């Protein structure tokens, strides 16, 4: 099993999707075990490919030849400048994505067997999960932009279907629609970017495009525009400002889905895309700055929103948006490695957090912090793992988040503007604060809703297991930064070594002083949070009274959804109304019917020439003759 067989990875879940979607009714347990087994296989295969890759890598070849072999024409109308081929392409970035996707997916599926038990459309759920995995794997493996776009929309579709899983709830349906359309707007940019790149290079093959772009074949501004459009796609998928609004609403979906799609994998597709094209972005610094500022702003904004949200999952969603912002900041300064690293770690601990919250929700059927509290006694495992995840998120040393976030800040201070660093560091503190808040309000203090509290119970093994595993991963994932760790595992080196191939920036250790600062700030955040929210529950709502306007501003998500809603209602639908009116009145009634009526009216007038009186008729004839004669003689 080498890289050339990489196409098998998506093939398996795709097949399972068809199988389960059509026949889940006939299967025991609606075929969930099939999905899980398939997923497990995929994980194994990924391991094999990883070894194959790193083996070849350690053998000194920077880019193994067989990484891009599998390819066939999908569309070929017979003109060489327009051929769309499907191909798999495996390189370091792919190698980071593959384990993340597959492992988290596996965890989530196992988790779901308990979480989703008894749901209607249980089989359908697993089918769509498989579909998602297939699409995601295609996305990360695709060596061709059209193929990438196909997979890109595929994951979008899966996300749409899963967010709308509880379609009986209008809110869920709306959220699904919102998610799809918002990302779709980003995809418009993506597709335009793709076609613009094709227009300049005449190919859709990613590596050829990168080669062409880096060799300066393409005019600078043109390339900038194209890459910005491309980034538009990333903005949509990865919920960056201004298209971030869909992700919080996406929490309408089942929690495991949020863990897989809206935390670990799909939303990082944007990061993957930009990372994939990082050499090109290195050419167009304007675009890269745009990325930096977008990421920065998003990170900060989302963090502030996370501070006040009372919905466990939404807090996590905001934090996801914020963390994605971190990644884009890294990309914005060209620190691809840091970005991918953070993606890697974030996947694990954010998935962990979501699953944890899922466990809570499962136990209490409540996801408002106002109804929670004191659960640590009832749900020890969940609490423990959740805290681990939170620490990772907050960036406390030895936990994964610490290393990756540290990388980002480091890269930023070294290559970015100072104020940006300050802002991001502040955001990091905010992160620690809202994380603490969440943990406190959920697991500590007194239970606020005793009824829910009484029925709460620890989740069973199917859910607890993944939590533990992910907790472990969330703890150790950070160590992959060290080459030693990597080598110890038989890899060619740490994650940095993998990703920074084309950069000299190899690091074997981290700048402890700098790290200390980061740690300190994180701790400060935790302390602030503790100081404010520990103890009784009433504090939870205190913020509202402390700074009502600010609070309202934050709770209403900086009023951005309102703004968008207003735009949609006033501008777009208004325009649509105008157009519809134009079509009805002007085109149809005036143009078509009007024309017909005019003709009819002439007929109506003319028919009165038929007076029925002989002399009139004769006069008509006479006039005819006279007229003809006049013309004849004059002519």
């Amino acid at each position, binding site marked *: 099993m080498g890289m050339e067989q990489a196409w098998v990875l998506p093939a398996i879940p795709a097949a399972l999707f068809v199988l389960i979607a059509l026949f889940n009714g006939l299967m025991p347990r609606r075929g969930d075990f099939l999905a899980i087994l398939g997923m497990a296989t995929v994980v194994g295969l990924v391991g094999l490919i990883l070894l194959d890759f790193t083996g070849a890598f350690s053998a000194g070849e920077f880019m193994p030849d067989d990484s891009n072999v599998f390819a066939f024409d999908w569309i070929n109308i017979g003109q060489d400048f327009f051929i769309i081929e499907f191909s798999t392409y495996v390189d370091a970035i792919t190698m980071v994505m593959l384990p993340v996707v597959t492992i988290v997916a596996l965890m989530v599926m196992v988790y779901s067997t308990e979480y989703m038990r008894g749901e209607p459309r249980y089989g359908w759920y697993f089918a769509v999960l498989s579909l998602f995995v297939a699409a995601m794997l295609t996305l990360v493996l695709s060596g061709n932009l059209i193929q990438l776009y196909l997979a890109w929309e595929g994951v979008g579709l899966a996300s749409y279907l899963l967010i709308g899983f509880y379609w009986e709830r209008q809110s869920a349906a709306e959220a699904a629609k919102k998610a799809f359309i918002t990302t779709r707007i980003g995809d418009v940019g993506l597709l335009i970017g793709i076609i613009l790149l094709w227009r300049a290079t005449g190919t859709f093959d990613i590596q050829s495009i990168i080669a062409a772009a880096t060799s300066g074949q393409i005019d600078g501004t043109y390339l900038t525009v194209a890459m910005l459009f491309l980034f538009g796609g990333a903005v949509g998928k990865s919920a960056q400002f201004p298209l971030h609004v869909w992700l919080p609403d996406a929490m309408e979906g089942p929690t495991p889905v949020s863990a897989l799609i809206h935390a670990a994998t799909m939303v990082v597709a944007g990061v993957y895309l930009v990372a994939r094209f990082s050499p090109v972005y290195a050419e167009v610094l304007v675009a890269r700055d745009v990325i930096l500022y977008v990421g920065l702003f998003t990170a900060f904004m989302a963090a502030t929103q996370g501070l006040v949200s009372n919905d466990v999952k939404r807090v996590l969603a905001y934090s996801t948006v914020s963390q994605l912002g971190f990644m884009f900041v890294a990309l914005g300064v060209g620190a691809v490695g840091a970005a991918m690293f953070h993606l890697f770690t974030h996947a694990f601990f954010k998935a962990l957090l979501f699953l944890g919250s899922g466990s809570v929700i499962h136990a209490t059927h409540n996801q408002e912090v106002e109804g929670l509290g004191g659960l640590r006694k009832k749900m020890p495992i969940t609490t423990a793992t959740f805290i681990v995840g939170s620490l990772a998120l907050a960036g406390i040393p030895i936990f994964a988040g610490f290393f990756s976030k540290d990388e980002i800040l480091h890269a930023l201070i070294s290559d970015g503007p100072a104020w940006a660093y300050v802002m991001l560091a502040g955001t990091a503190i905010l992160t620690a604060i809202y994380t603490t808040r969440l943990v406190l309000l959920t697991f500590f203090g007194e239970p606020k809703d005793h009824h829910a509290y009484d029925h709460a119970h620890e989740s069973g093994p199917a859910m607890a297991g993944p939590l533990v595993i992910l907790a472990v991963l969330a703890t150790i994932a950070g160590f992959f930064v060290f080459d030693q760790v990597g080598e110890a595992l038989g890899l060619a080196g740490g994650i940095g070594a993998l990703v920074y191939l084309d950069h000299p920036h190899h690091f074997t250790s981290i700048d402890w002083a700098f790290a200390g600062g980061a740690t300190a700030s994180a701790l400060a955040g935790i302390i602030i949070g503790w100081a404010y929210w520990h103890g009784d529950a009433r504090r939870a709502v205190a913020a509202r009274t402390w700074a009502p306007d600010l609070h309202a501003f934050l709770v209403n998500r900086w009023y951005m959804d309102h703004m968008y809603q207003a735009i949609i209602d006033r501008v777009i639908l208004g325009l649509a109304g105008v157009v519809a009116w134009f079509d009805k009145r002007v085109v149809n009634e005036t143009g078509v019917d009007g024309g017909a009526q005019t003709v009819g009216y002439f007929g109506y007038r003319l028919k009165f020439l038929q007076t029925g*009186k002989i*002399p*009139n008729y004769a*006069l008509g004839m*006479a*006039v005819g*003759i*006279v007229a003809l*004669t*006049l013309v004849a*003689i004059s002519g």
Partner: protein
Amino acid sequence: MFDRLPLPSQFDRTIVAGGTVAVLVAAPVLVVLLALLFADEISAPEFVFFVAAAVIMAGALGAVLMPNVVHAALSLVATLLGVAGIYLLLLSEFIALVQVLVYGGGVVILLLFALMLTNAADDPVVSDGTQKPFALIVAAIMGSLFVAVMLDAQWGNPSATVVPFSEFGARIFRDFSVPVIVVAILLDIALTGAFVNARRAEETTDQVEEAAA
């Protein structure tokens, strides 16, 4: 039906009226023409022509202008006779004869009868149509156009030839045999038409006969 045709009073009044009009119109014209004739300004045929033309015009105008239908009919007679005169002038006496016989003898009487049968006797005055002014304009334009056309053209040199009376019949039935047949059919049709229309509708007659039977 003769009792419905009010002779003589109506009739001689008509004659008197017609006569006076004719004299009043014709006298000055006649005088002028005679003067010209004796001054050898115009030849005898031309004299005749102008006389006839005057009669024709007068009659025609009378026929279309006179409010009294009977007068109109009678002035039509004048026109038609004048036309016959023109025919004579054109050396085709046979046609002239036919004209006099058919029109003077047949058509006009027919018209008069019809007039009487349609109550013209009781109120002989029929006002003209509302579109009279338009009619006048259009007809005037038409006439002037036609006249202009006639005067504009360069007609070929006159080769006045005469068809001897004797040949007429022979040639008609030789050279124009088909038209003769066709016109026969035509007359038949006209007869039928006049008959079916003038006669009252079929059933009634049948009923009458059945009643008689």
